[in-house]
């Protein structure tokens, strides 16, 4: 799982490599503490984004770390420690999401662009400003975007988070969601289109 997103569990240089893994395998208590300090906050952030409930998110992080520690002997070292932990915690979150009582999935259709009979935009898109930072405080903008992501239909929300924020490749996303690569790709694309629709009123040039 290559992690390209800005908020991933990628390790710092000091904690990657074989030395830390060797200490984990030797059950060195300070190594577990070190891993928790180094990667815990980022993985808790990932878990909070996906699960949106403090208690659930903490439980998923705990499950993930314990599963990782128990399986460290099987860790082959192809990925760095942060990437390996990130994959395990994401899977723990996805299992929790699947086990939640599922509400009926809302349709995303109303948030997709519309076209006239000839296939051209029905409502002409307007350019956004040079970036919402010009018109909004950075934190205000981030909160607005996070709220918009949270209001996406659930499976599209999760697909967008995993692809665009957690940095999974399309194939990794397909594997994590247990869908075809084509389905994963379409789901992310529609989620981005829907998010664009939700942000449009706030982002249009001159509206703020």
């Amino acid at each position, binding site marked *: 799982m290559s992690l390209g*997103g800005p*908020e991933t569990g990628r390790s710092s240089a000091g904690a990657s490599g074989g030395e830390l893994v060797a200490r984990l395998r030797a059950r060195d208590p300070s190594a577990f503490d070190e891993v*928790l300090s180094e990667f815990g906050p980022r993985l*808790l952030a990932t878990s909070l984004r996906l699960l949106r409930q403090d208690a659930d998110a903490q439980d998923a992080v705990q499950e993930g770390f314990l599963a990782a520690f128990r399986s460290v002997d099987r860790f082959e070292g192809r990925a760095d420690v942060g990437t390996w932990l990130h994959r395990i915690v994401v899977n723990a979150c996805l299992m929790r999401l699947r086990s939640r009582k599922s509400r009926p999935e809302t349709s995303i259709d109303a948030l997709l662009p519309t076209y006239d009979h000839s296939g051209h935009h029905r409502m002409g898109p307007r350019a956004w400003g040079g970036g919402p930072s010009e018109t909004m405080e950075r934190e205000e903008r981030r909160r607005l*975007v996070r709220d918009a992501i949270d209001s996406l239909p659930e499976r599209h929300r999760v697909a967008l988070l995993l692809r665009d924020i957690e940095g999974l490749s399309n194939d990794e996303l397909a594997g994590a969601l247990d869908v075809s690569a084509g389905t994963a790709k379409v789901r992310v694309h529609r989620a*981005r289109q829907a998010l*664009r629709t939700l*942000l449009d009123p706030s982002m249009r040039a001159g509206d703020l």
Partner: protein
Amino acid sequence: MIDSPGNDDDLALDCAGLHARLLSVLNEEATPATVRAVEAHAAWCDECGRLWKIAHESSCRELADFLDDYVDGTLPADQRAVFDRHMSVCPECVAYLESYRQTVAAARDSAAGGLPSIPERLRAAILDSQRDDNRA
């Protein structure tokens, strides 16, 4: 008949042949025989037919299907040419594409900022469970 651009009289194109000629047809630089050969292949090949239809009709709806690949830089050159061609005449799609790009960037940026700290109780629970595992 050798499958090479420039000698397309009565040529039966395969998909690669169509892709090799698509740009010249779009740029109106192809011979009538090449245009006929491309049209003939597009008439029976579903995938190339779709590309040809998009290139020919160039509607915003059909272009939207390629938007993610275009933004991610994974659109093949011939489809990118079709996309660019539409963009050159459609300011609405230019505005949409740019705001789509900004949407992806805003989503990525939304996760920046401070990280939560690990609550002491969670840290202790993980380390205690780990110690129990070691004893078992």
